[in-house]
């Protein structure tokens, strides 16, 4: 009302830009945007000007020079003659490894804790409550240092390694060593059996649904799938005459040689990140389950649906809609928190290209740009996946 009066009685555009209710909001937005752009333009321009002033260009050509340093955990071929970009890839893979392993473990532990937190057993309920509150309220870096300290200080040095399962597992403060499986050619048969099993499961799921829709008959889909995916390849494995050998770890000189090794840095980072994030996930899961009104359960029971099916068909699908969005944030957090790896010497992307490479080449802007781009890409990929999953789980109104 006031706005229209003002605009009709005062035709000056300049006046209206600031005092007309509708135009004013546009004006403010335009000015704010202009200021933000000016700010970033100034920052970027300033960096470029100053880099030029001290004669340092912005070039990524150093990535093809020999890195001149070694990395202890390399999942791809790498040595000190490899170029810097390869060191970056080694770091990237190590980051991915700990992030993915962390996401899996934290999800399992988190869901478990979340359900236990709702347990009617007073003791379980309280113990989980105390755990969650303790873990959530201490910074994750301290957890990492604590777990690492425990692993490094309590486990023995290789000479006095703890042996378990008759020489198949050695526990030391330099890592957990297990035999490494070496596959013989016949292993292909097992792999093919596995692929067939997966293919069968996909087909069978569709078939079972069709039958159920048509006749109401329910097949034990889970058990048959498990049989096809796991049991079938195992039977083939035995029929092929156990086509696998093991390379056993052996103490030679200072360290164990051979076998597979889980280094204390990885173990500490993985456990600390997972257990920390699990506490947050537990609370998210609890919130999700509690968000579903009890009336839903009662209604399902009244229809004669079994309790287990009530959980899997009524409660969980609805709870997931509440759980997934905040769960995505936790997955992003675990990925980003993995950059704390450098504190205990785990060679992730920050420690390799963002650490040693940066230091040896002095290309801080370039190295940091790479690290930034990688984290951004990784986070966006997780977000995209979780958004897709969220859409799939969304309530479909008919």
């Amino acid at each position, binding site marked *: 009302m006031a706005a229209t009066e003002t605009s009709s009685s005062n035709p000056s555009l300049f006046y209206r830009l600031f005092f007309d209710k509708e135009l004013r909001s546009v004006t403010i937005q335009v000015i704010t945007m202009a200021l933000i752009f000016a700010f970033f333009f100034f*920052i970027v321009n300033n960096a470029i000007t100053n880099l030029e002033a001290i004669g340092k260009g912005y070039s990524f050509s150093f990535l093809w020079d020999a890195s001149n340093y*070694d990395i202890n955990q390399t999942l791809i071929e790498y040595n*000190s003659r490899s170029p810097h970009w390869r060191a970056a890839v080694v770091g990237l893979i190590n980051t991915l490894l700990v992030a993915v392993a962390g996401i899996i473990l934290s999800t399992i532990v988190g869901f478990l804790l979340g359900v236990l937190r709702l347990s009617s057993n007073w003791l379980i309920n309280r113990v989980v409550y105390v755990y969650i509150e303790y873990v959530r309220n201490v910074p994750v870096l301290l957890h990492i240092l604590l777990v690492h300290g425990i692993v*490094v200080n309590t486990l023995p040095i290789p000479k006095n390694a703890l042996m378990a399962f008759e020489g198949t597992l050695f526990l030391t403060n330099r890592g957990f060593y297990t035999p490494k499986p070496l596959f013989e050619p016949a292993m292909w048969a097992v792999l093919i059996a596995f692929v067939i099993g997966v293919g069968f499961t996909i087909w069978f799921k569709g078939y079972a649904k069709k039958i159920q829709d048509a006749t109401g008959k329910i097949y034990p889909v889970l058990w048959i799938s498990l049989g096809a995916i796991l049991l079938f390849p195992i039977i083939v494995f035995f029929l092929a005459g156990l086509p696998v050998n093991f390379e056993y770890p052996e103490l030679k000189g*200072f360290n164990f040689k051979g076998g597979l090794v889980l280094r204390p840095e990885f173990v500490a980072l993985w456990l600390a990140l997972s257990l920390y994030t699990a506490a947050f996930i537990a609370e998210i899961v609890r919130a999700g389950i509690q968000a579903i009104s009890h009336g839903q359960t009662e209604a399902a029971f009244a229809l004669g649906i079994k309790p287990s099916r009530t959980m899997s068909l009524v409660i969980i699908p609805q709870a997931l809609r509440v759980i997934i969005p905040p769960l995505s944030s936790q997955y992003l957090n675990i990925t980003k928190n993995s950059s704390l790896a*450098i504190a205990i010497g785990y060679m992730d992307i920050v420690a390799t290209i963002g650490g040693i490479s940066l230091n*040896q080449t002095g290309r*801080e802007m370039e190295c940091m740009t790479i690290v930034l781009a990688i984290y951004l890409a990784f986070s966006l990929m997780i977000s995209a996946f979780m958004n897709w999953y969220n859409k799939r789980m969304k309530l479909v109104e008919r």
Partner: protein
Amino acid sequence: MKLFKTLAVSAAVALASTSGAATAGTLQDVQARGELNCVVTTGVAGFAAPDDAGRWAGFDVDFCRATAAAVLGDGNKVKFIPTTGKTRFTVLNSGEGDLLYRNTTITMSRDADLKLTFLGVNYYDGQGFMVPKALGVTSAKELDGASICIQTGTTTELNLADYFRANNMSYEPVAIETNEEGQVNYLAGRCDVYTTDASGLASTRGTFDSPNAHIILPEIISKEPLGPAVRQGDDQWADVTRWVLNVLIAAEEAGLTQGNVAGHAAKAGNNVDINRMVGTEGDFGSMIGLDKQWAVRAISAVGNYGEIFERNIGVNTGLGLARGLNAQWTNGGILYSPPVR
């Protein structure tokens, strides 16, 4: 609060550096500010670390104080900026620091590519290995297959990779960001060996509960001439800081000490070298934009090179470092300052 502070600082730095061409040189900036911003480590006992009273002390710290005394007339007018190996050059190049005294190895790429100007060597060092005595190792050649803790952020990784490759040995590197966490790993037996510059090893060993249970192996696998640096492009400031370093070394050679410098400055004696340094002959201070008393102030503040060495890292300190290469050239070392004349 911290964000605000950071923003304020970056804005200030940005303003200062965009208008850099118009302002005077670093010397004038420091004098106008009344304080020298000296870039040091986050803490290496003996070289640069806060003491029990929270006051910065150490070998590198004393050179900062000597520079402040020469430029500002007071060795306490220094703001120490602790930096990690990663941030030191950025802090210097951004203009936040005026002078870098941080166990920094002089290399061609740092001099040319990172746009630094090195002023000279204040400590001749080399990378070494420390092992527990109980291990029974007496030479680095016996370290095939060992786990080695490295303090990252230096040229250490490169030397180590080159040395083991040249000797056809394998090793497991454990690269760790800080000296403290590196020590924890080494003492817990996560690594067999700890490697960094030999001076750093001595410094680290000095902080152990039982320093005698560890030995530093005889092999020195690299040349690490440690020296101060300033930003490239300000020759006057480079001259001032370079000659403060030189005069401290020359003072030891000439026998000019913290105790006798005031006496020499009061009256010209027969030793012309000393007369030139203390300003009773010629006017060398004005050549670098300072007054005649510049060297007198620097030496009275912290003493000559030998006094600084013995007080902080010499044989009677926890580090127990012998002069070795760092003795004067007249005493079998390679310390050789250009003459003040």
